[in-house]
């Protein structure tokens, strides 16, 4: 054994210089390579799938949108072949659990496993320092999962692009709102932001619950609650909704509510049946060539009787404003949760 100089070296009693951050890169990779590889394989596999079905979708869309004149029998066939393609993907809900899964399986075990197995007693007594160790791991993993989610979301944006193209309605093609829940949070910056938030929720749950599996479950539950609340209550109020008397709200707008007024007074949300029977009896059964639906008839009838339909909506042009608003609060929330996590680790008593 080589001799250790016992007399204190001059540096030893002074405050030591912290170890370089880059050392944590290897440490983090070596300890989290399996879940990270899992995420890479999952996203990689899904990316290949999205790319393959996306090419077909784009091909079908290119044919359908180039067809002239719209509404002709040939074009109707092409349109319906585009419409019927990947219907299970078109509402976007199938991708919703992805950020939660990435966040829960990378974020929750990060500290929970150390606390559950007792290895924090090793990790937090090494020369690197407990707070710096935590900060380095959180930042490295948060950056990695956020970047991976951002890359995947670019692919999803490309996939869904045909549905948002202006002029779809005129060609009898599906027009979806980029603000619709299920689609809004797949594109732009928000998909990555939700993944970061799920990771931050997971990290905090891990340090609070201190056991891996319950922390993962808690993360999924908390994330689902937050995502649902945001989609249901929050998102539509980011900016004041526009109100229009125009019945033909573009299909890419997010319609919030519709109601009727008479003489600038609120009349009703949905016309009472008794009123309809009295002033707008059902049209004769021999309805025309099909592009004259019942609601159009009722609407026109009510208008003739002095009622005006108002629609509040968020226009599709607000997509990026909404993205920035949601991205910002999610980023702020994530940073807050990560800050709380580091603070808890700092004062956590073994």
């Amino acid at each position, binding site marked *: 054994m080589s001799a250790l100089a*016992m007399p*204190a070296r001059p540096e030893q009693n002074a405050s030591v210089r912290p170890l370089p951050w880059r050392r944590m890169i*290897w440490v983090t990779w070596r300890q989290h390579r399996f879940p990270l590889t899992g995420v890479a394989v999952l996203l990689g596999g899904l990316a290949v799938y999205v790319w393959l079905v996306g090419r077909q979708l784009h091909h079908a869309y290119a044919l359908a949108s180039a067809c002239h004149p719209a509404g002709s029998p040939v074009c109707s066939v092409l349109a319906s072949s585009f419409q019927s393609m990947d219907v299970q993907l078109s509402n976007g809900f199938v991708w919703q659990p992805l950020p939660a899964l990435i966040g829960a399986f990378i974020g929750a075990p990060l500290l929970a496993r150390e606390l559950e197995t007792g290895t924090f007693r090793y990790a937090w007594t090494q020369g690197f320092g407990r707070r710096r160790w935590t900060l380095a791991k959180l930042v490295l993993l948060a950056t990695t999962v956020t970047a991976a989610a951002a890359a995947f979301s670019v692919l999803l944006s490309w996939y869904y692009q045909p549905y948002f193209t202006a002029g779809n309605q005129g060609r009898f093609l599906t027009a979806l709102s980029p603000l619709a829940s299920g689609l809004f949070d797949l594109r732009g910056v928000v998909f990555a932001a939700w993944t970061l938030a799920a990771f931050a929720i997971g990290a905090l749950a891990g340090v609070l619950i201190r056991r891996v599996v319950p922390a993962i479950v808690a993360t999924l539950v908390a994330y689902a609650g937050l995502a649902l609340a945001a989609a249901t209550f929050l998102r539509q109020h980011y900016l004041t909704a526009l109100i229009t008397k125009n019945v033909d709200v573009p299909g890419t707008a997010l319609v919030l509510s519709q109601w009727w007024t008479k003489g600038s007074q609120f009349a009703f949300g949905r016309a009472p049946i008794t009123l309809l029977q009295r002033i707008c009896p059902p049209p004769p059964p021999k309805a025309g060539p099909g592009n004259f639906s019942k609601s159009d008839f009722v609407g026109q009838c009510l208008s003739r009787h002095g009622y005006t339909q108002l629609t509040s909506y968020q226009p599709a042009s607000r997509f990026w404003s909404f993205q920035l608003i949601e991205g910002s609060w999610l980023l702020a929330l994530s940073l807050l949760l990560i800050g709380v996590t580091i603070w808890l680790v700092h004062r956590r008593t073994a």
Partner: protein
Amino acid sequence: MNVIEASGLGKRYGGTWALRECSLTIPAGHVAALVGPNGAGKTTLLNLAVGLMAPSAGSVTVLGGLPAGSLAALDGIAFVAQDTPLYKNLSVADMLHLTRNLNRRFDDRYVKGRLDDLGIPLPRKAARLSGGQQAQLALSLALARRPRLLVLDEPVAMLDPIARHDFMATVLTAAADDGVSVLLSSHVLAELERVADYLVLLSHGRVQVAGDVDDLLACHRVVTGPTAQADRYSEGLNVVHARRGEAQVHFLVRTNGSADPVPQGWEAHPVGLEELALAYLREPGAAALPGPARGDDAQLSAAMR
């Protein structure tokens, strides 16, 4: 230099004090044993010293005044926790690399030589090592950091006798050859005589005995005599613990170093470390704390009865 200095140190969980009014000084260059029954606060004291816990009261500094848990303190202290936690899914080589990355100093040659001697293969996963090998790996990693203070929490509790012997041999070699100060906790008293030259006895969250083993042994003795005269004789003595038989009574006496002659019919013997520790553990009210009393010690001495 003192490797540990605690003053008024206390740690409370909810309403219970795991450690209370602990004032303690352990000088460098010792193998110090922290002894006490289960729940006496040994692990709490060690966790406070290595900075895993923050105290509820008082303060603790290490290695000549560094705040426990500071980067400078972590740099000089290696800690092997109870049950020697390792990353079970990492290989031995990975654990080495991990520890090298997380510390300023890491003696690769030393640790590889030791693992070679122990027959621990580098590619093996930590989970597949025996309990003794895991303990040895954790100890080797700690020593490879070239610490000035090695802190071990119940290091041998889970080991079989051979592994226990090998483990303690490694610790003692490091202490003797490299001058590493050692603080180890144990509730196995039998080991201590061979290992420790400084004793800290904790009981019910308080420091009961603290001192150099030679000094402690020099100022205690066992006095044996007829039970009938026991009460008369014991009046002038500082009796720590009395063990009464039908005919004979054994007093463990604190003598302050002077070997006063004993009355006729009585015999005096030197005391062993295990016997001394047991006597104090059986008498939680008694205390033997180091000489030139500092302010904090005076309070404790007052509680001596």
